[in-house]
Structures are given as structure tokens and as C-alpha cells.
């Protein structure tokens, strides 16, 4: 292509390699989930933990409603205009996350002994 210079190609390759390296690191350090549960976090505070095996509808404040059905979690209602979280694909025991940025709601599958992310990679005792 005539409008691609050599420097452009190098830049594109570098910009492609950085996220690939990050993803590779993430996948390598990820562990298998045992005893997964649904964690609902609003504005940084975990407001509830829910069993994936029990079908239920969860009201999150007065802004969002999420649903657990057959082990799958999805957001069924949000009062924001973009509705990105409602259109997100459902999550389950394999892990995953649904985020509603306008209302600062996070639905995340966590492991049984996993506490809220402190921002630290690990603690040396």
C-alpha cells in the first residue's frame, strides 16, 4: 500500500505486540476457578455475593437489575442510555465480568476464597 511507510509498519507491529504480551501474561497468571460465585460491586463496595446455582433476580440499587439463570449471569435492566452492560454477553462459572460504567456497577465471577481486589498482586507475610 502506497500510504504505508516503513515507520508505520514498525509502529503497528509494536502497538500490536504490547497488548499481546499483556494478554499472554494475564492468561499465564490466571488460575482455574473453584467454587465460583457472583460478586456485585457498586462504587467499589461489594454489596452482595450470590450463588450461581440458584436462579434469582437481583436488584442493584434502583439503577440496575441482574438475573442469575441456569448458572448464567446477565444484566437485564439498567437506567443508563447506552445499555452496554445489558448487551454484554452473559457470564458464568468460567469467570468473567459485566461492567456498567455510568452507574459504577460491576458484576464479577469470583473464586470462593477470593476477596475484593486490593490493587496488590500479593502480600508477603
Amino acid at each position, binding site marked *: 500500500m502506497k500510504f504505508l*511507510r516503513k515507520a508505520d509498519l514498525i*509502529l503497528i507491529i509494536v*502497538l500490536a505486540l504490547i497488548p499481546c504480551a*499483556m494478554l499472554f501474561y494475564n492468561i499465564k497468571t490466571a488460575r482455574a476457578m473453584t467454587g465460583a460465585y457472583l460478586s456485585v460491586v457498586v462504587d467499589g463496595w461489594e454489596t452482595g455475593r450470590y450463588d450461581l446455582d440458584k436462579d434469582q433476580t437481583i436488584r442493584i440499587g434502583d439503577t440496575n437489575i441482574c438475573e442469575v439463570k441456569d448458572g448464567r449471569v446477565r444484566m437485564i435492566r439498567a437506567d443508563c*442510555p447506552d445499555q452496554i452492560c445489558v448487551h454484554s454477553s452473559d457470564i458464568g462459572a468460567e469467570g468473567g465480568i459485566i*461492567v456498567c460504567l*455510568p452507574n*459504577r456497577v*460491576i458484576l464479577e465471577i469470583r473464586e470462593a476464597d477470593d476477596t475484593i481486589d486490593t490493587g496488590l498482586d500479593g502480600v508477603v507475610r
Partner: protein
Amino acid sequence: MSQKIPSYNGGVGSRTAYLGLFMALAIIFGYIESLIPVPVPVPGMKLGLTNLVIAAILYLYSWREAIVISALRVVVLGFLFGNMFSIVYGLSGAVLSLIVMALLKKTGLFSVVGVSCGGGVAHNTGQVIAATFLVTGFPWRWYLPILMIAGLIAGLLIGIADAIILPRISRIGVLQTK
């Protein structure tokens, strides 16, 4: 064509008129984009059609005009179709993207394709940074690389489109690339 075509970039009146036109175009692109549902599992992915206009302004005028139009359209689009937070995310993405694009352009090494790729990646990086600060526990480790790749692909497509459009705008003789 041997006849010299006058360029109208310079005049204050025409510049204001053309930038207004570009602004309107950017807002329309933003609106069109909000109408198209994006079938991807990760929220926040989109083509960034408005960046077609912003990158063009960067080449037709300078980073000053581009940053003004870019910030204004984020605020206008936020008021029209979004909320306070979409303005914050949009601004952090738009500003970082424009800084990176202006710097890449200044080096003189890259064509509009490379500049746009850098801009796309920077735009999504800026949004992830904003989300990390605003939403406690935001899983940026996963979002950042995925959105960087999405930004790169979007930037590549937008850059190629601009590489095709810019010479044509120059050929019409209304505006000249710098």
C-alpha cells in the same frame, strides 16, 4: 492541473465556517455510531468514526484546532446521547489520543495511517485509565490489552480512510493539507 488553486485555510472567516462544518460532521458521525449496535463481548469497542474528522483537522489545520473540535464534540455528544461519565471517559480518551497523534505527526516519520493507529490505541488507553480511577476494582489488566488491540484495528481503518480522503480534499482545492 497547472493552474494554482488558492487555499482557503488561512482566512479567519472561512476557517471558522469550515471548522463548524467539521464539528457538525463529527457530531453526526458520533450519532450514527451510537445507532449501530456493536456485537462484541467487550463493551466500549467501536470504530471511532469521529476520529476520521479529528485526524483530518489535524492534517488540514493543526493540533490546536483539532483539540478544540475534539473536546467540543465529546461534550456535545455527551449532553445529547450520554451522561456525565461518558463525557469524562470521552475527554480523557480524546485528549490523550490527540496528544499522541500530534506528537507522532511532528516526528515526520509516520503517514496518517501510523498517526491514526497511535491515536486509536491512545484513545482507548485514556478511557481505561479514566475507568481505573473512577471505578474501584476495574479489571484494567484485561480491558487494557483488549481495548488496545481494538483501538489499533479501528485506528488502522480510520487511518486508511483518511489517507484516501485527504488527498482528494486537497485536490478539490478548498482545503490544503499541511
